[in-house]
């Protein structure tokens, strides 16, 4: 149903056959798909779509229907600062983030939507900064190589720390990190490298500690980093996607950093011999660099543009949104 609406609005899709066409994610109720379209009414106006008269009428009717649906007061009310949250005070409930107790009443401290999970009542802020949780997959950029750790910038209030001991050694052996390993940290990650890791825990001052112990984490090469708002990436079971049709890896970092790159089969554990490491790496790089084919790069760019359009329309960046192919 949502797809028809998009068609009705006359989105022009180019005639390239393998262009992925974005559609609303499956399993979404018609009401919320309408919500998304209506929420972007202003943006669509700005996009100046060529609508015929019937399409305009249909769009107007859809918006009106949406207004009537959302005007009913329900328990998922959107609140602004200093609004009391409707709670049954007899029941035991837990005060979550974004709420505070003021004169015996539960008051919202941020603007957002009230969410209830069993007994927990909290306010989910819209457009908020990234709120990290333990176990989140994040993509970050190395800003500093410090003593026994790398500092990564992850779109959070503080830089995250990736300890040398939380990183698999290139030769795969589990051993104590010696002083020599410390000196060779730059051969693993350097400044401005893109790294994928998982949140391990919070440190005492509120900053994050990351780990990259599995084969799927580590340095990311041959691709593009895309920065979007963190609230558009929902926590899901799979953050690593492999789009077979294009041979592309898609990593949705929860901090709003998305990596789109050429598919890498498995991270080869290249044995770094200290004496030959430099010449070997330049030889390997020289061979690989010539081999990202033009079509692969075009696909990477197309997927990146599709995600950019989805974020402009404030739809979530999800694998299903990108994989429906449309041939015109």
């Amino acid at each position, binding site marked *: 149903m949502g797809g028809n609406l998009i068609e009705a609005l006359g989105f022009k899709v180019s005639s390239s056959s393998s262009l992925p066409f974005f559609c609303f994610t499956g399993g979404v109720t018609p009401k*919320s798909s309408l*919500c*998304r379209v209506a*929420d972007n009414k*202003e943006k669509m106006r700005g996009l100046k779509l060529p609508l015929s008269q019937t399409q305009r009428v249909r769009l107007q009717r859809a918006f009106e229907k949406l207004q009537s649906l*959302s005007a009913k*007061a329900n328990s998922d*009310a*959107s*609140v*602004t*600062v*200093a*609004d*009391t*949250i*409707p709670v049954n005070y007899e029941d035991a409930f837990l005060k979550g983030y*974004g709420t*505070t107790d*003021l*004169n015996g*009443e539960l*008051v919202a*401290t*941020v*603007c*957002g*939507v009230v969410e209830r999970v069993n007994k927990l009542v909290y306010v989910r*802020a*819209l*457009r*908020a*900064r990234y709120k990290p949780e333990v176990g989140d997959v994040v993509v970050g950029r190395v800003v500093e190589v410090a003593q026994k750790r790398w500092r990564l910038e992850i779109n959070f*209030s*503080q*830089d995250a720390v990736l300890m040398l001991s939380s990183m698999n050694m290139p030769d795969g052996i589990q051993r104590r990190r010696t002083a020599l390993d410390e000196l060779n940290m730059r051969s693993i990650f350097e400044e401005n490298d893109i790294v994928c890791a998982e949140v391990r825990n919070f440190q005492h*001052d*509120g*900053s994050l500690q990351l780990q990259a112990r599995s084969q799927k984490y580590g340095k990311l090469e041959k691709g593009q980093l895309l920065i979007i708002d963190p*609230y*558009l990436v*929902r926590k899901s079971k799979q953050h690593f996607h492999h789009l077979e049709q294009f041979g592309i890896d898609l990593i949705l970092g929860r901090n709003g950093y998305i990596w789109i790159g050429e598919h890498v089969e498995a991270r080869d554990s290249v044995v770094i011999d200290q004496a030959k490491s430099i010449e070997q790496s330049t030889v390997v790089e020289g061979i690989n660099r010539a081999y990202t084919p033009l079509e692969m790069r075009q696909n990477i760019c197309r997927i990146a543009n599709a995600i950019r359009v989805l974020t402009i329309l*404030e*739809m*979530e960046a999800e694998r299903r949104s990108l994989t429906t192919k449309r041939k015109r």
Partner: protein
Amino acid sequence: MEVDREDGRSQNQLRPLACSRNILHRAHGSASWSQGDTKVLAAVYGPKAGTKKNENPEKACIEVIWKPKTGQIGKPEKEYEMILKRTLESICILTVNPNTTTSIIVQVVNDDGALLPSAINAACMALVDAGIPMKHLAVAICCCVAKSGYVILDPTKLEEQKMKAFAYLVFPNSVRSVLPEGSLRVEGEPIENGIITSVTHGIMSVDDYFYCLERGRAASVKLSDFLRRNLQQQSTDSSKAG
């Protein structure tokens, strides 16, 4: 006592208000506030790690930078910065993000009277846009006392210069219920009491000051309605994103 104001407003009438949020894309929160011709832009960056030297590390710290329209930064700007800092520290919940600094930068675009209240309103909306938890909103208003004793609200620059004394008052936003039945209950109650900041210039009697307070409080209810409607509109526009 009927008073003739230059732009034809009545004694208690405010200038047309306009507020827009999220105008600067690189700042974590931003807002632009205009009252008539006075226009102020505020941007919020943070929370960032670490606090300043003399600040309590168990609480969040707020840092304000005031940028005038022309000229260098001098003592009046430092005074505005200090007033803003104290006001905003009292409305934010400082224990949520300890050992962090939030920077607020206020840029004066045009000054046509009631500059500090506009700046406080703009900074408050920018903090809301950045998602920083606050106990309530701060609503700021300017009242002037003329030589003949009458009190007017929201003066323009010319009116301000002719006045005997003026006061900037900041009131807290009232707590309202989301459901329609709840708000009916609130209307019957008297207007909330509580004042966050009061800055006075000039000479006025105590009675005049209390009169200003009363008028200011009544006007702040209207202002806080406007703020609430503004926030409600924008939050329903971008809600249900997911």
